[in-house]
């Protein structure tokens, strides 16, 4: 439910914030400068719509750099985040490597890298405001940015529809 609501909101907000990583593919095509959604191949280096892992991380790729965060399902399950432990810039990660942890009132929970790559940026705003992960998990609450060393790994991740189906199946 929360995911669907987010999509409606994101579509209406999109034209006001061009160039930000995040909104859904359908919103992107409304922007004059946005590249059309491309099939994966060499062009995956440049752009990919948001994809999800079965551990509830998401990654969206723009100009060869992936932005990583946790899904709305994950942030709800986690509860209020009180601390974000993120890696150093330059850390090399293999797909599924643990890259950090989120501590919430519920538990400490590990974060797993969706792809193989190198960390290029971390969200320093989370140091003083870890709650951003809850408030804005797809926008301001992003966790790290990383290079995409093996673009074919993106094929192994779920697109939004597949992820929504996946959540339903585990929520039974």
């Amino acid at each position, binding site marked *: 439910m929360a995911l669907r609501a987010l999509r409606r909101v994101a579509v209406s907000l999109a034209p006001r914030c061009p160039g930000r990583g995040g909104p859904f593919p359908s919103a992107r095509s409304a922007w004059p400068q946005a590249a059309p959604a491309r099939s994966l191949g060499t062009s995956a280096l440049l752009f990919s719509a948001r994809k999800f892992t079965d551990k509830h991380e998401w990654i969206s790729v723009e100009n060869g750099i992936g932005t990583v965060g946790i899904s709305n399902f994950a942030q709800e399950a986690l509860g209020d985040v*009180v*601390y974000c*432990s993120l890696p150093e810039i330059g850390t090399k990660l293999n797909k599924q490597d643990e890259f950090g942890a989120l501590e919430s009132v519920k*538990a*400490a*929970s*590990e974060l*797993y890298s969706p792809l193989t790559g190198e960390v290029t940026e971390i969200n320093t705003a989370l*140091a003083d405001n870890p709650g951003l992960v809850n408030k804005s998990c797809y926008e301001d609450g992003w966790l790290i940015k990383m290079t995409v060393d093996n673009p074919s790994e993106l094929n192994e991740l779920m697109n939004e529809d597949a992820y929504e189906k996946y959540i339903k199946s585990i929520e039974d």
Partner: protein
Amino acid sequence: MVILLSLKNCFQLHYGLKIPAAGFRCSANTGLIIQSVSSDIYQNLAVEDWVHDNMTLEDRHVLFMWRNSPTVVIGRHQNPWQECNLKIMREKNIKLARRRSGGGTVYHDLGNINLTFFTSKKKYERMENLKLVVRALKALRPQFDVRATERYDLLLNGNFKISGTAAKLGRTVAYHHCTLLCNADRFLLSSVLKSPYKGIKSNATPSMPALVKNLFEEDPSLTCEIVMDAIAAEYARCHKIDHCITLINPGDETVFPGINMKTKELQTWDWIYGKTPKFSIRTCFNMVYKQSLLEVKVDIQVKHGRIEACNIDLPEQWLPPAMCSELEKNLTGSKLCPSETAALASTLLRVCPQNYELHSKWSLLCETVMTLM
């Protein structure tokens, strides 16, 4: 009745749970109760790591019971300088450990019982586990007023904390562990869990201090063994398994392949101190030198437990400025550690002019700076 089994007579732990009832003399298909023979915090924390990393617990549960020799255990994202009195701990040989779960700082000794409830992520349910403990205690002593709070503490008589909780969610396994004060040294607990360090600014997760009490103070006939047995009995009843506790040796690589490496990692300086979130120390000291009071201002940035930058402000000309900046320069990059600072200070002393007054001022300054650590 408790049947204590040695794991040497059974198949390896992970096989025992993957193949129902294989090798174990008790019905291990839905649950298992294990108890550590070790009182070493690092070995026991390594057992948790091992189970977390190596087991799949689809429809199975494990209860792990353990006790430690005097130790302070901080949460995953905490700052030991902010949470405890490292000086007293060093003097009294009390260990410091950082666990992988979240939560606050606790003091363990053999009068405290640790319980770890392992489940699949789906079955992770802290309140259920705490209710189990409450039922066990009430079965032992029906007159006890013990209840769980919203914060997942256990309170005795409505206002004394006897148990605190922390948890970790992994790939497939989750664990919830908690303490239980039976007969711990409450006075030592209060003194080590009080930080003397001033001026710390940090975004590390803080602890919530609480009044504590031991179950033993309500009823001196209670021992840790009796309480552990009662909890095991209640766990066995809930999960419909035999009431038998399997003793485990956390140092045994044949049962827990790879565990000794996990134990080693938990003991490293880089894990215990180096994992401290970035913080700063900004404070003023008063030093007494030859009957005059001198003010020293200190501003230190600490990252990964090492001094990233440091500034020491002394009264003008009290020490040659070159000496002070030498100290600052050498402290940068070194561990926030009194023994490392002492070594550094005496090395620097050797290269400075042999002047008694200078040496005594230098020693005083360094000792003062070391009190921060």
